[in-house]
């Protein structure tokens, strides 16, 4: 199963609920297009909920980094919510755990956006 992305607004924060696999091919391109659409519409506070993501490969990680850079370069913020142990391990192996702001609590994550 590829990734399914659902967006919702919590105040001025756009929460993306991701479900499935973010891997090279359909999963990573779906993710890339979704982030492009959001930034094109001026969404600058993006919270990516990865709680239901079962699998991310290096391409998926690359897409997350690319999204982070793209949103940051446009003056926005992209933060992560509800990492599974496997995704957390991936971010630690790749040293990206220090790059992304990561939250386990949605309300706290939403409040953290300046």
């Amino acid at each position, binding site marked *: 199963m590829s990734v399914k992305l659902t967006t919702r607004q919590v105040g001025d924060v756009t929460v993306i609920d991701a479900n499935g696999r973010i*891997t*090279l*091919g359909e999963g990573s391109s779906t993710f890339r297009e979704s982030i492009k659409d959001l930034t094109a519409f001026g969404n600058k506070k993006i919270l990516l909920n990865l709680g239901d993501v079962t*699998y991310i*490969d*290096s*391409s998926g*990680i*690359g*897409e997350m*980094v*690319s999204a*982070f*850079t793209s949103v940051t370069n446009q003056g926005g913020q992209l933060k992560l919510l509800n990492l599974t142990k*496997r995704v957390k391990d*991936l971010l630690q*192996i*790749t*040293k*990206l755990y220090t*790059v992304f702001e990561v939250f386990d609590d949605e309300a706290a994550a939403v409040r953290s956006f300046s």
Partner: protein
Amino acid sequence: MAENQNDAAQVVEKQFDSTLDSVDEAENLILNIAGQTGFTEDDLHRLGMAVREAMVNAVVHGNRYNLRKKVHLTVASEPTALRITILDEGEGFEPQELPDPLAEENLLRQSGRGLLLIQAFVDEFQMRKAEPPLGTKVMMAIHRNPESEAGGPTE
């Protein structure tokens, strides 16, 4: 796609086309073999991830999606480990020439983490340029947990 199965030696050899579908097929093949021979769920995740990354490298960077070129996969089920070799028909490369994905200046690069992940997820890893006309040969192994049912099929 060709397959050669040698039951006595518990070796499976298979050739894949240079497509992204092959990545999924190879991952599923390995997971099926490993799942039947006593590996844990965590082992399966590590194996699937490593094989996926190696297959992507072979298809995308090695064979560059060239349908005239194949990816050769060998799986050897041994009493103490599952050994996997993935060989492409690309031009090959020197691993030391790749940028370090953990260097501060490379952390935000979009790509270049595949080999890092493979090495993190398997117990043994080797990679070298193969003899022409073949390209890059990746050899990896994951060890069996001595407490699991090594070599025996599971439900």
